[in-house]
């Protein structure tokens, strides 16, 4: 089982208080990581409007992620991509019952504080937006709201967990409609997990210390991860997912769920496609059901997609070395 404890001493995000005569605690690791556990086997959909959020909810999305522009438009328009309008986020929160997430720029403590005050259910410190601090991510233990972060290697994932991320999404290349990078990165993380698990099983502490130094994270976190043989938080796949078959494939690689960005609302058959991606994620173990889901979409209406080799901007590189 994924351990839920992991609080650092005196984390500012964890708050004790008295409600009537009962003492309660909020913002603990159990509550933040536990929230991510409730999303498992689900699809989180990128949305920019209330209408899209409602389509997502009706299609069976487990949560929506509010952006100002979908990743493929961020790519096209260029300029600086920032957190979405608070008014739109609030409007969406008032119209759907599922959790609402929003993105902030990497390292932008105050965009995060604004989202925390807005009461979004989870904050995504995301490479889709223009990074505000290339050298430091947000210290996420300071927040009561849980965070999700992207990663394309085990080292990157564990650095984010050590900073307080309650959930990880293995990165793809956002806004491309090309699933290749998402597949590559989950396979890489799986491979690295197998490697440290075998070091753990051989009881070679010294080699684990070496890994911790290489990963630039604490020994305890590496040891715990090696012991359980998986990421210590829920891990979704993200970036470039455009079809039901894409989603089912990533589920089969051991992802706990799926983020879909431009893949749905940049396609011309968004409503059907949203439903189809959820069906394929839920029933990924049954190929006939995945086929039925795939049949609901029309390939001629898919997001056209981009070849990753020719990209000027690789969003996945952002924040990954620190």
């Amino acid at each position, binding site marked *: *089982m*994924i351990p*839920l404890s992991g609080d650092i001493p005196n984390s500012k995000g964890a708050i004790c208080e008295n*409600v*009537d005569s*009962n*003492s*309660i*605690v*909020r*913002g*603990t690791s*159990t*509550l933040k990581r*536990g*929230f991510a*556990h*409730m*999303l*498992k*086997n*689900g699809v989180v959909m990128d949305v920019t409007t209330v209408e899209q959020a409602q389509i997502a*909810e009706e299609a*069976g*999305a*487990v*949560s929506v992620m509010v952006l100002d522009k979908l990743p493929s438009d961020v790519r096209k328009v260029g300029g600086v991509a920032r957190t979405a309008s608070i008014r739109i986020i609030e409007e969406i*929160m*008032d*119209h*759907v*019952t*599922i*959790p609402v997430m929003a993105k902030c720029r990497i390292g932008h403590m105050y965009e995060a504080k604004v989202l*925390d005050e807005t*009461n*979004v*259910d*989870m904050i995504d410190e995301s490479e889709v937006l223009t990074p505000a601090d290339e050298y430091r991510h947000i210290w996420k233990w300071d927040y*009561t*709201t*849980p965070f999700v972060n992207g990663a394309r290697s085990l080292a990157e994932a564990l650095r984010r967990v050590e900073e307080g991320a309650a959930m990880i999404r293995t990165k793809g290349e956002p806004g491309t409609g090309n699933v290749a990078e998402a597949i590559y990165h989950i396979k890489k993380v799986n491979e690295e997990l197998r490697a440290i698990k075998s070091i753990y099983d051989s009881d070679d502490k010294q080699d684990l210390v070496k890994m911790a130094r290489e990963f630039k994270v604490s020994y305890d976190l590496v040891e715990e991860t090696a012991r359980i043989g998986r990421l210590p938080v829920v891990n979704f796949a993200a970036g470039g997912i455009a079809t039901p078959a894409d989603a089912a494939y990533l589920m089969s690689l051991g992802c706990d769920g799926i983020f879909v960005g431009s893949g749905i609302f940049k396609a011309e058959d968004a409503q059907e496609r949203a439903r189809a991606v*959820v*069906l394929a994620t*839920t*029933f990924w173990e049954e190929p006939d*059901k995945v086929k039925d889901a795939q049949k609901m979409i029309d390939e001629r209406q898919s997001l056209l997609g981009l070849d990753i080799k020719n990209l000027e901007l690789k969003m996945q590189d952002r924040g990954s070395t620190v």
Partner: protein
Amino acid sequence: MSKIKIGILAVQGDVTENFLATMASMSELGIDGAVVQVKTVEQISSLDGLIIPGGESTVIGQMSLVNGAIKKIKEKIESGMPVFGICAGMVFLSKNSQDRVVGNVDQPLLDILDVKIERNSFGRQKDSFEAKISMEPIGISSFNGVFIRAPSVSETGSDVEILAKFNEKIVAVKQGNILATAFHPELTRDISLHKSFVKLVDNQS
């Protein structure tokens, strides 16, 4: 004595945690049985007990409707199979559910637990909390309640027994073979609630 078989509805949500808590409960009670993750009508047909885990009730409901699981589950509960609904599972079991902010939502429900549910009753994720809960009617005097965007019960039918309240809101109920909590016992190390459900199933079969 025949082996009991408890299923965890594996449509969406925290299935593994419930699977492990149920396994641990069986072994601690010394009850011979199997725990299985279920999704299809055939799998559900052979069960002696079912746990509907935490997750998003809208998703669990919609996806259970797709393959006909919802009908089978209802049929099994009506014929006496014990069921334990947690958070989203509690909402899914209910006859009536409304969201605190959005109000009426058209979502598939099992329509079997005679209560009215207020979804997201304590607020959004930031308001999620842990607190001590007491469930005296089933002999659990202190339990760490983990409430994540939790619902509460706003009205109960005459056959519904209230097991626990928090700040005047009803957070755990029992109606015959149906057990339901607004909080997540599977996210704690305390398996006493899962144990009492396993005992309920064992006594039935």
